């Protein structure tokens, strides 16, 4: 796999690389044609679509050791390999690998780019096969359930009836919960982390700020920036900066940066990034736009906003899990104010009421929502113990 590094400021090549990755990703790829159209929650059909995915480890003869990893809003399928665009390690390298909690020596691990994404699964940055033009804003609005439907189609393609586990944090956790509701018989266990059964008003509000920042960028061009050769990277960077604050916590920001100044002794009394925290956020913003499509950001944030599992079931969350037999382990973090523990508890109560075997652990950390991606020994121990128990219960043998 070759790695393309994008020079900062080289906007044309950046746009080009994002564009190429959207249609011809450096990933495994499956295309679904007109024989298997995708009916979307929005009421329209995608007549053809493709899914870009990565796998790690080997599928055993019984096909019983498959684990699906669901990625978060700005993640992608490159969970345990060097990222083809950024050259950075996989986003969950601390969790997935030989001998690690999600053990590639024992399990067959699948991670697919979500529908609406920009790393090879069909989304607004993809080419519309019918018109021959890029989708842009003509791409239909998709939901978390639509994403999960495409993942189920991928499993059909791979010949896997039932997953040993489906695991994900944040929006990945939403997909995990959706799996438990839409395909309860296809999962043996589920591990939703730092997530909720519905997107809260506060979270919708934050997303709206992000979308407005993108759309306020004159280079957004009503979503046709690819055709017009522009890139709304400033708007997208602002969206990312705002969102990034919500992934951390006051305590974590204070511990990392405090009020320390960036490479200077005294404030400049101007609007440069005087403070380290400003510099950090600017870096987060600018590195994000190098790998993410602005329209994709609009679509995926929207999918999260529409997520409301109880809403699909007469506002009674327990009803959503009525047919679930799978073991569930819910994890939350004390300092996560984006998906706080109370929301996790609601899910746990509903699962209990529905009679599903559920565990729930709250992990103490000051790292905020992002804790699920970071080095959290307690999380590792829980994931390892939970997967071990599930594999034992199912009688899973390693591939070799």
């Amino acid at each position, binding site marked *: 796999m070759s790695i393309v590094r994008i020079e900062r400021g080289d906007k044309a090549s950046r746009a080009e690389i994002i564009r190429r990755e959207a249609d011809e990703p450096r990933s495994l790829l499956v295309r679904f044609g007109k024989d298997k159209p995708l009916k979307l929650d929005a009421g329209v059909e995608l007549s053809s679509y493709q899914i870009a995915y990565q796998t790690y480890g080997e599928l055993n003869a019984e096909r019983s050791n498959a684990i699906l990893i669901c990625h978060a809003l700005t993640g992608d399928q490159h969970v345990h390999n060097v990222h083809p665009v950024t050259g950075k390690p996989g986003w969950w390298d601390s969790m997935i690998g030989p001998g690690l909690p999600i053990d590639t020596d024992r399990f067959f691990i699948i991670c697919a780019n979500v529908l609406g994404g920009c790393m090879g699964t069909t989304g607004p940055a993809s080419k519309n096969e019918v018109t021959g033009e890029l989708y842009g804003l003509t791409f239909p609005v998709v939901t978390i359930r639509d994403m999960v439907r495409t993942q189920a189609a991928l499993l059909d393609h791979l010949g896997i009836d039932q997953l040993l586990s489906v695991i994900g944090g944040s929006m990945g956790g939403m997909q995990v919960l959706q799996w438990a509701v839409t395909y309860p018989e296809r999962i043996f266990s589920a591990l939703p982390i730092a997530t909720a059964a519905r997107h809260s008003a506060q979270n919708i509000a934050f997303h709206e700020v992000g979308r407005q920042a993108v759309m306020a960028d004159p280079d957004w061009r009503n979503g046709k920036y690819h055709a017009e050769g522009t890139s709304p990277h400033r708007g997208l960077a602002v969206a990312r900066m705002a969102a990034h604050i919500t992934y951390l916590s006051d305590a974590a920001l204070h511990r990392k940066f405090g009020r320390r100044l960036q490479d200077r002794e005294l404030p400049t009394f101007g609007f440069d990034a005087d403070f380290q925290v400003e510099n950090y956020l600017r870096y987060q913003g600018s590195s994000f736009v190098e790998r993410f499509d602005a329209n994709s950001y609009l679509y995926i944030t929207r999918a999260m906003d529409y997520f409301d599992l109880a809403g699909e079931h007469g506002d009674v969350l327990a009803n959503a899990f009525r047919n679930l037999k799978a*073991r569930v*382990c*819910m994890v939350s973090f004390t300092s996560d104010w984006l998906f706080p523990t109370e929301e996790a508890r609601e899910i*746990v*109560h509903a699962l*209990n*009421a529905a*009679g599903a*075997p*559920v*565990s*729930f*652990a*709250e*992990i*103490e950390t000051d790292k905020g929502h992002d804790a699920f991606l970071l080095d959290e020994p*307690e999380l590792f*121990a*829980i994931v*390892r*113990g*939970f997967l*071990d*128990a*599930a594999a*034992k*219960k199912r009688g899973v043998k390693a591939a070799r």
Partner: protein
Amino acid sequence: MLTSNSPGALTAHAVPKAPRVDLVVVANMVEPGSRVLDVGCGDGELLQLLSETRDVDGRGIEISRDGVNECVAKGLAVIQGDADTDLVDYPDNTFDYVILSQTLQATRRPRWVLEQMLRIGKRVIVSFPNFGHWRIRGQLVWYGRMPVTRNLPVSWYDTPNIHFCTIRDFVDLTRELEVKIERAVAFGPSGVRVRFDAPWWFWNLFGEQAVFLLSRKG
């Protein structure tokens, strides 16, 4: 190499620890293959014993974060929660057995907790330290001090135990709640059972711990 006579032998080899007597007594009251909720399950020792020896579908509630995380890491289905508030969230008759092992005396509302357990489970098992045991009475009577014993090692200002009761107090409560005592076991310091046919006052004096199996009347 260590021989069985050498002092380090016991610690060097991970000799499986024999389960606590009270846990074994509780486990023996559970029908194999049933659905069990352990309220205040600690680090999951009882749940693990139950799933290994009685093949139960076990769940737990535990207030301490460390306890929960240890349980989950062991593969047990345990949620973090408070018995004093969270039992209302469980529907009626969800479990064959709801167990309160060495936790009754640490609840804020023991009576309410018992009522909830009797609602959630078809049967309820409660084990608790008997505050009427002669040693405890002796410490109060002879020394005039709050008892500190092997089973209750924490001083009064640090103990999580806020609602002690004696075996006779507990029997009174079961009468008030109009529940049936299906079985009861009391045992002394070395795990020796108090004579089965002895009267309550005798149990109350010589039983260091007690385990009750209860069910709703009717």
